[in-house]
């Protein structure tokens, strides 16, 4: 096991009766990165997170968190945002934050100070004395995240932190996640929004039916799935360009065309050919690197078939 990793998971499995929720899964989360856990609903993401947090015990395999199997002392260095949000409803926001902060080892005064500072940063100072049940869903979600980072943990595990947030609040949360990372914190995040993974995450693990499907740096995985092809938009006789083997209209979105290139052809030579051709008008020229979304769908459909 790599003790310098934030999380090290070795060959864990977990079954519920005859249903195999997690099947011989191994991966590592590096310190200081934002790590994405992806997969369709029911793939085993939440189960894996709960096993990392020692809420569930794996049937087999080992897990080390921040260098060693999880202990009570380590719990103070971890923050957890559960998939289904958990807050006390009939308690004042600050009161609840202070209580949960002290359970993570903060003193009452320190917890109070940090809660107010975080609420200020979230623009929720006015809500400090309100009861949780009086807050909107988005506000509750922000409070939930504030609780997760209140004790300034080294590692946070957040299960779908963006679900149910409007674009403005998503941005606020994203900022918080980035500033958490800048201070050296490690983030493990599950999400269904692939654009967020592309934008925020360093590495990813994709699981389906409890098994690893993709694992590695986000850029590497995208390149791995990249085609030797170019996406263009505009007018012109694309098939006639030198080095283009075949063309394929792209169904989704606008009238874009996919140009499959001959093995020796470079993208630069195609671009030069387009620029030299007077009757070609170009509006878009892009490497055909698939979005994570496309990869996700391809991988998931591949496994379920």
């Amino acid at each position: 096991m790599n003790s310098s990793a934030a999380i090290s998971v070795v060959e864990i499995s977990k079954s519920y009766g005859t249903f195999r929720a997690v099947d011989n899964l191994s991966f590592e989360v590096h310190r200081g990165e934002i790590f994405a856990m992806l997969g369709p609903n029911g793939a085993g993401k939440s189960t894996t997170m709960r096993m990392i947090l020692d809420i569930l015990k794996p049937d087999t395999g080992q897990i080390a968190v921040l260098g060693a199997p999880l202990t009570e002392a380590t719990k103070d260095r971890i923050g957890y945002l559960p998939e289904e949000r958990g807050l006390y409803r009939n308690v004042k926001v600050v009161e609840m934050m202070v209580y949960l902060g002290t359970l993570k080892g903060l003193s009452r005064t320190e917890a109070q100070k940090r809660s107010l500072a975080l609420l200020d940063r979230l623009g929720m100072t006015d809500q400090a004395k309100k009861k949780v049940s009086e807050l909107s869903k988005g506000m509750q979600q922000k409070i939930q995240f504030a609780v997760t980072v209140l004790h300034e943990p080294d590692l946070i595990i957040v299960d779908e932190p963006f679900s149910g947030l409007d674009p403005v609040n998503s941005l606020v949360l994203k900022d918080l996640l980035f500033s958490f990372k800048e201070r050296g914190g490690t983030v493990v995040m599950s999400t269904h929004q692939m654009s967020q993974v592309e934008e925020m995450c360093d590495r990813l693990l994709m699981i389906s039916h409890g098994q690893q499907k993709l694992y590695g740096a986000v850029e590497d995985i995208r390149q791995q799935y990249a085609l030797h092809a170019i996406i263009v938009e505009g007018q012109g006789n694309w098939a006639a360009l030198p080095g283009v083997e075949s063309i394929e209209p792209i169904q989704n979105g606008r009238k874009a065309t996919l140009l499959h290139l001959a093995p020796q052809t470079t993208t630069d030579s195609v671009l030069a050919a387009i620029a030299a051709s007077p009757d070609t008008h170009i509006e878009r020229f892009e490497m055909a690197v698939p979005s994570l979304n496309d990869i996700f769908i391809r991988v998931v459909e591949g496994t379920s078939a």
Partner: protein
Amino acid sequence: MNKMWLVARREYLYNLKRRSFLFAVFGVPIFTFIVWGVVFLVMSDSDNKVSTENKYGYVDLSGVLADPVTPKDKPDQFVAYPDEQSARAALDSKAIPAYFVLPKNYLNTGEVQSYSYDSISSTLKDDLASFLLANLSRGLEDKLPLERIEEPVTLTIRPVDSGRVLTEANLPALIFIPLIFSFVFLMSSNVTSGFLMGGIVEERANRIMEILITSITPFQLLMGKIFGLGALGLTQLVIWGAAGALTVRFGQSFPFLNGISFPVDMMVVFVIFFLVSYFLLASLMAGIGAIVGSEQESRQFASLLSLILVIPFFFLTTFINDPNSPLALALTFIPFTAPMTILLRMGFGSVPIWQLALSLAILLLTSFFVIWASARVFRWGLLLYGKRIGFREVLRVIWSSPEIGVSLKSDSGRTSNV
């Protein structure tokens, strides 16, 4: 600071401010006193009506009341009518509310018929008896006081080893003290352990449980809750105790409160048994709270438990008649009925020290076992959302390997995790 005390502190302060707690602490005693006051006023009011305002008729066919006398200290409230027709006429014209007929063979049978449109109160019956007694025993007063014929025995019970003296004059108080203790016991243990179970069910339902047990151990959470709410129960006892002391102090003018005192030995036994059985109840409720599916379901279990607790009440008369009957002994040694049984028995008689000790020992052992078992079930049940769990499965968790994950092996029967 140990995180367990953080939980205890939070549970105490949060529940202290709850409306249902404030109602239980202040509302219930106030309400009870109001009801008693009303009952007391109504009772004394109806007594007055019987003795002063109305006259009752009688028709004497036996000749016992040929030359009637009125008993000492009683108003003259009976009027003779020559025959039943005239008495009936008086009744119908509402001149009298009732009349009695003493038949010819009254002296042999003691039978008396009453005629009225309303019911005959027991006070009136007593007054009639006194009236008849005064007339039947005429001439005997010289030889012996009439009161002895009326009341030949006034019992004073002196349980040899308790030092408490129980007289019939303070019989209301006699029944009162154990009842008050039992009531207080039921109320506070029910309220606090109910809060405990409700809190756990709520925390499971809104998933804050996941945050809690990634911060502290389930055992810290369980014990913190039990201690915090136990302190809450003690607070309730202290407030009620103070209220009780005040009532006794200022309530001496009320005749029905006369003679009430709170014996020290009962207080000590009460507090000890209260604490131990609170731990038993609370940990049981916590274990149940950790596995039931909903708040509703948890309430059903709670009411079932309190039903078991009040079983000794059903045998109240047995305890009064014979505090050392086999039934009383059996209930003394069953953990759930022990506190109430001991309190009731101590009120009506005395309980030998060895019985107290044995009962307490059984209660303690049971409590330790239930806390231990609950802690195991607690850890396992916390995250089972919306799943129904069979009784056998719970037993399996209690008895299976010491390291309990939250795996749910269904019928496959394979052993659970490492």
